[in-house]
């Protein structure tokens, strides 16, 4: 009892002290721990429970405690929680994470905790053993990077990525190892006992780069795709290479004599291990994809297959002592595309979340632990060796990038320039994997302590110094950037057009590059793979996928406004804004009809195709599709609450839908979301990605979102009515989707000449864009009055016919409606 209470109390104290510290600027962090140390004597029992065995009594105990039984999971849970709380803490004050990478903060927190533990003479929990690391901590990290690898740019640059990952790592390991061996010969440093094998082993450990922090920075400043993907891929495959080399060298380090034939065997093994891992990965990837073909009835366990198969790939690869990292990476790369088509939207989201979560927990723990270990373990400081390690790591990395780029550049369509090379070289931070490898070194390595110390030194040096300075440097030297936030249909269309053109021209001049192979693979994929692996194997162009996505977003916002419009009143300010920024992002009403058709047909299998660049610490921005469900429930609830609405207003408000043709519905509806308060609980998560998306999509939308408030007042009633209809409709037609859709489209056709007219026939009256929206409204109102019968707006449709809104015709939703 005593133990338990003090543990949790200590834990809470910990957390409180962490949370109170982190929001402050990082400059303030160091002085505080001194204070907290004094507060925390009760922490003493936390890790020394063995010292307090419960007194056993002969009689029947009324109350017992068996702490040793739960000790390990209990402590692990506390550590994970603590690390997670630390992460929450960082994001309370957002600016910290912009300037200081999260890994730095985690290490700092670890250092603080370590200092506390050290001051009370505690040992860190001995959980990080070689087995724990390789079997439980590493797979999530690698799965995370593998699963969220931006597939397309990766395959476009695969040669360079592998070149840097494999040859670069070898270069670094051998270069650093050899130079350190040379240093060891100098007597002044007193490290002559380190032989070549051990030096190579150590060099291998510290050549595993882990540029999560760099990738975050790259993403924020949106450096060019090529640089980004090379750094990303390098970090991934370089882990694989490092682990292979590590295993080889730990084996070799034991050998008394190394024969030349062993070197050849080593090289051969290197390839066997790498290619074998890949083969297993592909195998399991396909099996996994094939399995998900049949999971439509057991949606709950769908995500499980993904994890189990990738873990299985990992374990089987471990079993045969081939590269398990390669296996899990290729497995996730292979299955991702097919699995995401097969599983339901929710499972897809779940998979992504869990992959992200596990990966980031694992990494958080390692960084955290690094901080703790730095303080609490005995170090063997040999400054000469450590400083030379730092120097060589830096120099060889720089040299390597310089030389390797010179070799690879002639083979690249877009060669790397000096700035890119700087980014590559400077991005070589060392991280979690290095530390874990060093920490789990076998004990028969004579200078294990020195190696751990040197590894920690290089990690701290690179993570803090390079990690913090890379953002200003990258911004300063102005690396070529790519705009990644081009989610417009036009860009997608033209991108496709361009790719096809390039592929065609390549065919024409009888040459080929990745476009050629991509073409061939796509053909093979469509003809064979998709048929086998995907349940509904209709090929879908990425243009269509993007289109659907955009339309879904649009539709979602319309649904959303159903919920949002009641409480807030339009403000004068918004009217003013309206005049100032006449730049909406628009879909005309007429086109919304087509969108409806598409949506009604395709709502089931909307998938986001390409995961955009993702960092380890954030999920890809794919939440729109999922959130529609949440939003819809909110909207229904909302619509029920206000009760009845005057239908008389409807005809009036319909005009607004059709009115300013250039305006988008979205631009007009969005401000509501910002002001609504009622259904925060459900919407809080949902609102985020949308605002996010909007601000990305273009400035116009942003500004227009606030400007279009005026018409909203009128629209309220209509939309409320719509949502009531949605309910009815939901009750009525559950399941007969196809039939109603068809009948709808036919009946709708008769009603829709008006909106179409706006788009297609060329008209002469080009008044320029009016700044005065109000006038527009009036004009249009008058214009519409003569012909009130065909309301030229699709948003008004659901009013007329309950079955009309195909968006809502999604049988899956019905069960949730209760």
């Amino acid at each position, binding site marked *: 009892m005593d133990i338990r209470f003090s543990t949790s109390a200590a834990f809470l104290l910990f957390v409180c002290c962490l949370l109170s510290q982190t929001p402050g600027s990082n400059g303030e962090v160091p002085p505080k721990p001194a204070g907290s140390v004094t507060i925390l004597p009760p922490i003493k029992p936390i890790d020394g429970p063995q010292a307090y065995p419960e007194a056993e009594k002969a009689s029947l105990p009324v109350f017992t405690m068996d702490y040793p039984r739960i000790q390990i999971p209990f402590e692990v849970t506390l550590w994970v929680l603590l690390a997670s709380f630390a992460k929450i803490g960082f994001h309370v004050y957002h600016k910290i994470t912009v300037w200081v990478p999260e890994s730095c903060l985690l290490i700092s927190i670890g250092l603080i905790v370590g200092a506390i533990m050290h001051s009370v003479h505690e040992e860190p929990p001995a959980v990080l053993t070689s087995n724990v690391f390789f079997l439980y901590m590493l797979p999530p990290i690698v799965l995370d990077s593998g699963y969220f690898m931006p597939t397309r740019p990766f395959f476009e640059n695969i040669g360079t990525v592998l070149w840097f990952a494999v040859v670069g790592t070898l270069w670094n390991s051998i270069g650093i190892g050899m130079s350190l061996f040379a240093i060891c010969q100098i007597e002044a440093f007193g490290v002559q006992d380190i032989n070549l094998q051990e030096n190579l082993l150590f060099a291998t450990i510290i050549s595993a780069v882990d540029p999560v922090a760099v990738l975050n920075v790259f993403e924020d400043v949106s450096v060019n795709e090529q640089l980004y993907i090379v750094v990303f891929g390098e970090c991934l495959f370089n882990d694989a290479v490092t682990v292979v080399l590590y295993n080889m060298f730990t084996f070799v380090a034991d050998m008394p004599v190394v024969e030349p034939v062993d070197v050849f065997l080593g090289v051969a093994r290197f390839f066997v291990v790498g290619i074998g891992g890949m083969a297993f990965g592909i195998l399991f990837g396909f099996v996994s994809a094939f399995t998900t073909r049949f999971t439509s009835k057991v949606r709950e366990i769908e995500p499980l297959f993904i994890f189990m198969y990738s873990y299985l790939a990992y374990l089987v690869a471990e079993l045969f002592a081939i590269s398990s990292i390669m296996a899990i990476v290729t497995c996730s790369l292979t299955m991702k595309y097919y699995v995401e088509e097969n599983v339901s939207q929710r499972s897809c989201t779940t998979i992504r979340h869990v992959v992200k979560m596990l990966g980031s927990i694992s990494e958080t723990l390692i960084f955290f632990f690094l901080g703790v270990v730095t303080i609490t373990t005995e170090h063997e400081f040999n400054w000469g060796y450590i400083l030379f390690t730092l120097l060589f790591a830096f120099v060889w990395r720089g040299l390597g990038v310089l030389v390797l780029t010179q070799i690879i550049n002639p083979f690249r369509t877009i060669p790397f*320039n000096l700035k890119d090379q700087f980014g590559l070289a400077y991005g070589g931070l060392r991280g979690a994997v290095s530390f874990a490898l060093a920490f789990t070194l076998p004990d028969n390595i004579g200078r294990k302590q020195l190696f751990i110390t040197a590894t920690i030194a290089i990690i701290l040096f690179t993570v803090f110094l390079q990690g913090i300075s890379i953002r200003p440097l990258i911004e300063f030297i102005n690396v070529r950037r790519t705009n990644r936030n081009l989610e417009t249909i036009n860009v997608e*269309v033209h991108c496709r057009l361009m790719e096809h*053109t390039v592929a065609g021209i390549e065919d024409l*001049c009888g040459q080929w590059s990745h476009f050629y192979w991509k073409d061939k693979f796509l053909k093979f994929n469509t003809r064979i793979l998709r048929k086998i692996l995907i349940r509904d194997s209709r090929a879908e162009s990425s243009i*269509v996928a993007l289109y659907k996505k955009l339309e879904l977003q649009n539709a979602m916002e319309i649904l959303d406004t159903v919920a949002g419009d009641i409480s807030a009143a339009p403000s004068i300010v918004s009217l003013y804004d309206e005049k100032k920024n006449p730049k909406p992002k628009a879909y005309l009403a007429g*086109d919304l009809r087509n969108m409806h058709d598409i949506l009604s047909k395709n709502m089931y299998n909307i998938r986001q195709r390409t995961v955009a660049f993702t960092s380890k610490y954030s999920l890809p921005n794919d939440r729109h599709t999922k959130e529609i469900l949440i939003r819809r429930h909110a909207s229904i609830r909302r619509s029920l609450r206000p009760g009845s609405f005057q239908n008389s207003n409807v005809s009036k408000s319909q005009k607004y839908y059709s009115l300013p043709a250039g305006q988008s519905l979205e631009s007009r509806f969005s401000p509501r979301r910002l002001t609504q308060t009622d259904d925060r609980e459900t919407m809080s998560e949902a609102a985020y990605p949308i605002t996010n998306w909007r601000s990305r999509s*273009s400035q116009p939308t942003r500004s227009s979102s606030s400007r279009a408030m005026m018409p909203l007042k009128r629209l309220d009633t209509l939309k409320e009515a719509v949502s009531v209809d949605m309910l009815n409709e939901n009750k009525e037609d559950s399941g007969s989707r196809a039939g109603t859709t068809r009948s709808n489209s036919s009946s709708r056709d008769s009603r829709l000449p008006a909106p179409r007219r706006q788009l297609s026939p060329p008209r002469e009256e080009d008044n320029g*864009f009016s700044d005065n929206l109000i006038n527009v409204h009036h004009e249009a109102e008058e214009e519409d009055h003569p012909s009130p019968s065909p309301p030229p707006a699709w948003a008004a449709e659901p009013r007329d016919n309950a079955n009309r809104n195909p968006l809502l015709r999604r049988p899956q939703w019905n069960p949730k409606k209760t």
Partner: protein
Amino acid sequence: MGALQSIPGHPEYSDLSDKTGFSFEQISVLHKRFKQLSHNEDTLHRDDLSAIPDLSCNPIRAQIIEAFFDQRNFSPSEEGTVEEIRFEEFLVVMSHFRPPRHSMSEEQRESVRKDKLRFLFNMHDTDNDGTITLQEYRHVVEELLSRSGALGKETAKSIADAAMLEVASISVGHMEPDEFYEGITFEHFLKLLSGFDIEHKMSIRFLNVDTTLCK
């Protein structure tokens, strides 16, 4: 690639090299390919190009082939199409796909960019009136989607429509209800794709090595 050694027997290559920026090796490789395609004739016809087997599954095959016979792609001032092209024109069209040079000034990059975008624009603008009309746009989208089978013309149409609206909203901004956006002009086209890294993406690494035999 920059190593310009004169290849004996082809003095005309130096002119072509000046004009198109290809190296001699690249020109000679392309020349071989040209001869192969034209069956050792001096000129190339549409039929020669449509006979290429690799091209047969390209959804926009027709546009690509047409681009080779479009005089706008030979020199900006001309118009109309031709029936046959010589090697020089063939090379000029190809030169639109040269990768940008290693280091470029901002103006050079802009001009390369414009050049490539103009090529794409011309592929859309079949009637050469300086704008991409909705019909032309729809046509292209239809072609692009033609391989994905299940999607009918309706989808292509609505996508083209939505894309057109997007253009209208990006380039014109607010529009009156009765306004009509008549088509994408080249300026709007540039604006539309302003963030798109086309100068790097729309490039082919022309090899110095002859690969015609490998096929």
